[in-house]
């Protein structure tokens, strides 16, 4: 069973999200819940990245977009990292076009620090 784990950064951004992009903020978790259902149905993050509303970013990060009900929606992204071994979907951050570079950088850093931590833990386990 895949679980969702929001980071403090994600929760902070969600709380401070501008009211004028309210519809986008609603559509992103809507798409997230669809993606989550697909993972529960044994879908893989790699396959999901070919489906339109989920976009592949560097370092295994995926960006879920705002597509959904409503016209003239602003391009926004919810950045997630699927930890396939632990079956955890980390919600890293959300943003729009203006914060895209920073959001991707932050997401890549999150993914690499998570992988480093996992490798360290594995080594410790192996060493007893």
């Amino acid at each position, binding site marked *: 069973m895949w679980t969702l*784990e929001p*980071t403090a950064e994600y929760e902070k951004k969600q709380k401070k999200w501008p009211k004028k992009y309210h519809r986008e903020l609603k559509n992103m978790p809507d798409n997230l*819940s669809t993606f989550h*259902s697909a993972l529960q149905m044994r879908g893989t993050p790699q396959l999901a990245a070919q489906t339109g509303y*989920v976009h592949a970013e560097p370092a295994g990060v995926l960006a879920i977009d705002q597509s959904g009900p409503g016209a003239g929606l602003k391009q926004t992204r919810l950045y997630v990292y699927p930890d396939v071994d632990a079956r955890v979907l980390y919600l890293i951050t959300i943003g729009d076009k203006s914060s895209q570079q920073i959001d991707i950088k932050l997401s890549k850093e999150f993914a690499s620090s998570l992988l480093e931590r996992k490798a360290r833990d594995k080594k410790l386990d192996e060493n007893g």
Partner: protein
Amino acid sequence: MAKKKYLSVSDMLADNAPTEEFREEFETQVAKRRVIKHLIAMRTVKGMSQKDIADQVKCSQSRISKLEHGLDDDMRLGDLRVYAHSLGFSIGFLFSDRKITAVEEVKHHAFCIKRLMDRLAHLAGRDEKIAQAVSAFFGEAFFNLVKMLQDSANKLPPQPDDESPYVRIEIAASGPDQIAIETDCDLMAEELRELVVR
């Protein structure tokens, strides 16, 4: 770095939505798009794009996009049929009594699960390999069902006299074939206590 884990987006938003009004709007939107979301999830599982579906259905990609961005009520039955068909599914309908209570519905689904489990057990026949696979699945299903029960029980308010939970279920899995479950609930059968599945 990371915080609490959630089993669904709804659970998460119940905890951290920017406002209660936002959470309610989100739930309403999801409820109005339940079938469409299921279709998109199935398309995601298959790794198919909107264009793949459009090619199979012989329509434009923008038509599929419009359908996916819409509401269940706006979808034509014919569209639902061809979309599901292009994914390799047929559709079935279930008409249920609107007055059915949640408890009756849970019982109904529990019997459906029981029937399907029996079918799986029957499928094994005398084949040891299938029997092992089905047995492993039963263990997994047992664990997940108890986990769901635990999750729902955790949503109950605490008992007013001592703030203790009405139901306490602890799951400890020491291996894929060994799950120990400890319960503390007056309403549960004694046999559930320290039940060990091997």
